């Protein structure tokens, strides 16, 4: 006891002398991410002498956002650093510190488009830690077994998925499904549906100039096509699936195709995975040859709360988390896409995540959700959009009817201007 007390006092003196800060970072923890983040925070603590607490957040980004909003509105001083989704910058800009000055020595190393996505009215709201663009995961062993090629269009994907499902079921895998994706009514469905629509030439819900474009034939056809997958090539349960539920089906070897973010790549090749080494990834399909494959732009960033009383140390932590060193480890261990172009030529990353080199153009062409144009109204736009899509997918009205209604609602929401 005495020894412990002495150590504690010594620690306090040493810590006090170095004026160590105690920081808290709020971050979501999907898959292995929490473990990874704790290890990096440990490195940061060893390097700077500061202490960092990890406040883990729910996997659903909608829930995470709600919690952030509450904390920030209450001027919470306990949380210093927030891990933020790419779409939140315009909504939370006022609550975060402007990082432009503090990070001007490193911002040139990032992809300009990613820095741009976190800049609101000239203010750099958050520093990008990794970017995200979903892919289609496919079982290369099964495609080889049945002599199939990776599909290029949605119709090909549907046909291949159907064939694989039938053949695998006939071979005794009664639970086998062709395709799994995220169709629960939440932000993830907005991403999925935006990809279906954009890759069919149906626009991006609200165009960058503010026009509401969602009510068009191509968009409706894209959603109706997806409606046809449910119960045929995809379990009806996808209507309640988020990322992790889909990964559960996929990683136990019960699906031929999955739409998911790059994090599932490292996990799928983990030792406890039933499909280790049996799968590969490819860009999302298109509706017809000539259409542009469109992945929703995702990605996570680190922002400093303006209510933090340790802003300097917090900025240091943000820069550390977005540094080349951490991003490289992140790419190797978690298969998250770096936001630094230089890392795409890195030999170690190429060796452990062979898919990544080919991902650079995909995320550079990724389609942003209309968060920049809809500003503070984005969440409501997204909620109404996923509501209309979820209704259609669960057989509640046709896509054309639901989008007609959605257009009216969005127009009312928009008012005079976004």
């Amino acid at each position, binding site marked *: 006891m005495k020894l412990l007390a002495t150590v504690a006092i010594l620690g306090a003196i040493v810590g006090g002398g170095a004026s160590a800060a105690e920081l808290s970072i709020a971050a979501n923890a999907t898959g292995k991410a929490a473990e990874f983040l704790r290890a990096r925070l440990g490195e940061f603590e060893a390097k700077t002498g500061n202490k960092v607490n990890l406040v883990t957040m729910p996997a659903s980004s909608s829930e995470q956002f709600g919690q952030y*909003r509450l904390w920030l509105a209450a001027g919470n001083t306990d949380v210093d650093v927030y891990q933020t989704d790419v779409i939140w910058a315009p909504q939370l800009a006022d609550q975060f510190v402007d990082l432009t000055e503090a990070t001007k020595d490193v911002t040139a190393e990032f992809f300009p488009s990613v820095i741009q996505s976190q800049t609101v009215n000239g203010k750099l709201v958050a520093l990008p830690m990794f970017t995200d663009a979903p892919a289609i995961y496919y079982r290369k062993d099964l495609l080889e077994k049945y002599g199939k090629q990776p599909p290029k269009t949605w119709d090909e994907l549907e046909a291949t998925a159907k064939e694989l499902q039938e053949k695998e079921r006939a071979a005794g895998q009664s639970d086998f499904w062709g395709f799994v994706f995220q169709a629960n009514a939440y932000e993830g469905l907005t991403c999925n549906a935006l990809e279906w629509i954009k890759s069919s030439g149906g626009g991006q819900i609200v165009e960058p100039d503010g026009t509401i474009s969602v009510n068009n034939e191509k968009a409706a056809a894209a959603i109706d096509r997806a409606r046809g997958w449910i119960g045929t090539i995809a*379990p009806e349960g996808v209507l309640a699936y988020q990322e992790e539920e889909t990964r559960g089906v996929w990683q136990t070897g019960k699906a031929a195709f999955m739409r998911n973010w790059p994090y599932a790549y490292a996990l799928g090749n983990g030792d406890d995975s039933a499909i280790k080494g049996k799968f590969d990834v490819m860009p999302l399909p298109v509706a017809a040859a000539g259409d542009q494959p469109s992945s929703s732009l995702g990605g996570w960033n680190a922002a400093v709360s303006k209510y933090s009383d340790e802003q300097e140390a917090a900025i240091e932590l943000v820069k550390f988390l977005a540094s080349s060193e951490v991003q490289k480890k992140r790419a190797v261990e978690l298969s998250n896409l770096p936001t630094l172009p230089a890392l795409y030529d890195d030999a170690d990353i190429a060796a452990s995540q062979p898919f990544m080199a080919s991902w650079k153009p995909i995320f550079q062409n990724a389609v942003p959700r209309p968060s920049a144009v809809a500003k503070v109204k984005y969440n409501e736009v997204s909620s109404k959009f996923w509501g209309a899509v979820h209704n259609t997918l669960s057989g509640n009205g046709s896509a054309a009817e639901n989008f007609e209604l959605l257009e009216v609602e969005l127009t009312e929401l928009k008012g005079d201007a976004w």
Partner: protein
Amino acid sequence: MTELSLESASTVPAARGAIGSDLRMQRVRSAWIFLAPTLFMLAVVAGWPLTRTIYFSFTNASLTNLSGAEFVGLKNYLSWVTLKSGRTIFSGLLADPAWWGAVWNTLKFTLISVSVETALGLIVALVLNAQFPGRGLVRAAILIPWAIPTIVSAKMWAWMLNDQFGILNDILLGLGLISQKIAWTASPDTAMIAVLVVDVWKTTPFMALLILAGLQMVPGDIYEAARIDGIHPVRVFWRLTLPLIRPALMVAIIFRMLDSLRIFDLIYVLTPNNAQTRTMSVLARENLFEFDKFAYGAAASTMLFLIIATITVLYMWFGRVNLEGER
């Protein structure tokens, strides 16, 4: 209920009339003194937030700018503009179909869940009221679902109801009751059923316990007399037991009703966030924190409060519920 006991403290002696006015004054005074801490706590933790919420519902407050809220009258509840063409457009909560959909979902949920829970709770209580070996153990065991935090049981059930890995589908498939796996929480029809099942599982013990407390107040000699007279047990239940436990039953139903009218956690965890299952609380939360419509959400919360208050008052009026425990 504090007001009610306060009322009884002041009116009961008055009704008796015989007690001197000095003594009465003194008793009223001490009643107030004893009640003051409770009233203070209620005012701080319930009164103040409620007043704030009602106030915000008449403003244009946003979560990021609460202090800059300006008074806008009833705009969040109902407002209308008449266009040049003569068409009138209504807006606001009372003209919002999403709100009325949520109200309907909540009422439907409350009606079904409370009815089923009352019936099951009554049966369980009658069984537990009988003498049998190990009764104490069973009484403790039956409370377990009630003791688990709702959010935990909701998550637990979410996995049990999962279409691919869930144990429920596995059992039903094994028994040959279903031919293919059912996505319980995915489709709007089964999602409501799933939520009802979980809610009934969780709160029936609570109903049973409250009713059991009522049952134990019934004196045994009445039953003895009935038995000697050779009255059929079913008739005894309808003519003796039910009227005698009615006060306890009514109170139990009120508690459950208040609880289920503000249902949030089960719906939020178990079902996709769509219009078919969204309840009043879910809608209020969404507007308050996720959308940039704090004042609108405050209006929804206020309406939720008013609806619950109205239903409770109506129920007590028609049910002649006596919360003072007298008959």
